[in-house]
């Protein structure tokens, strides 16, 4: 059991500076370049990265806005795209209890939660003393958010200096990154929902472009839910 704060800092830095920071840097470079190419301001890219802090929702914001959806549906779409934060927070927050009563700090800390910190916490927390887990989470999350912020700015500013082919490659990185990250989820019903959604999304985009993503989500998600109810194995991580 690790009880030394300095040791916790070192582990958090080492865990985050490798794969998670590079992944976030790369994916947010893609996001930043998309925001620029969609004709939107840098401030929106930065606010999107730090405020939403989830690639699916960030892409939904830019894409639905570019598609001309009304603000209400854009916000609803972004929100639904990030709905997985609910089960993630529910299962994760109790793993790093506060020393003080009340949960004011929890409401601030939960903003840093992402698939990276969630996975790192689940892996490392068992070996870290209960009162030092928040320290690990904050150090890890701060480095991840910094990497994401730097990537967003690099992508936004850099896309203008690139040859056209590479700039388009950076934009193309968005759906690819996103598909590969989601394909790595070890949960068969979620993958089924993803696969059902793909053709539905194209269909509704052609037939009812204003409501395409919402209809895709509700119909495809309900269909996947119906299938999962008939699936004997309960593997329910988000």
């Amino acid at each position, binding site marked *: 059991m690790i009880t030394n704060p300095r040791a916790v800092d070192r582990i958090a830095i080492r865990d985050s500076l490798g794969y998670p920071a590079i992944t976030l840097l790369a994916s947010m470079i893609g996001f930043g370049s998309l925001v620029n190419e969609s004709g939107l301001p840098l401030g929106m890219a930065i606010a999107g990265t730090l405020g939403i802090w989830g690639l699916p929702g960030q892409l939904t914001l830019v894409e639905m806005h570019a598609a001309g959806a009304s603000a209400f549906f854009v916000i609803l779409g972004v929100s639904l795209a990030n709905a997985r934060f609910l089960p993630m927070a529910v299962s994760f927050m109790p793993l790093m209890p506060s020393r003080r009563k009340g949960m004011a700090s929890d409401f601030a800390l939960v903003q840093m939660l992402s698939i990276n910190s969630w996975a790192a916490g689940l892996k490392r927390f068992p070996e870290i003393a209960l009162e030092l887990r928040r320290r690990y989470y904050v150090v890890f999350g701060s480095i991840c958010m910094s990497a994401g912020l730097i990537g967003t700015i690099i992508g936004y500013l850099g896309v203008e200096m690139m040859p056209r082919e590479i700039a*388009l490659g950076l934009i193309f990185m968005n759906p690819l990154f996103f598909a590969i990250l989601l394909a790595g989820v070890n949960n068969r019903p979620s993958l089924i929902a993803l696969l059902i959604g793909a053709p539905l999304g194209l269909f509704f985009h052609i037939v009812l472009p204003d409501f395409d993503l919402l209809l895709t989500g509700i119909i495809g998600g309900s269909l996947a839910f119906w299938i999962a109810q008939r699936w004997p194995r309960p593997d329910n991580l988000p």
Partner: protein
Amino acid sequence: MTTFSYFGLTLLTFGAILGTYFWRGMGVLFASRVNSAGAVFQWVTFVSYAMLGGLIARMVVLPIGPLEETSLLIRSLAFATGVTVFLLLGRRVLPAVLIGVGSFITMMFFSSFNVAAP
């Protein structure tokens, strides 16, 4: 494309941030009091996955914005390359993304070369 109102975009972005934080905040409120594998949570998770599947397909097949100027064939081939590399080579995200994007850029260079030289 560049005619936007900063005020409108600020409100939109703020709304999107609140719409996302809604789930995080509810997660803190409900933490340890409910089972995160419950039916409602499961349904909500599937709704977002289906939506994201639809968004990915649309970004690749019927993109809006700059990718419209690229060909469907190149986008589909590069997408399939990236996902195949991911599934076949030990499920490593970064190499798969780099190879997929690399194949996209390579194909773009060759196709623009062909267009430039009739």
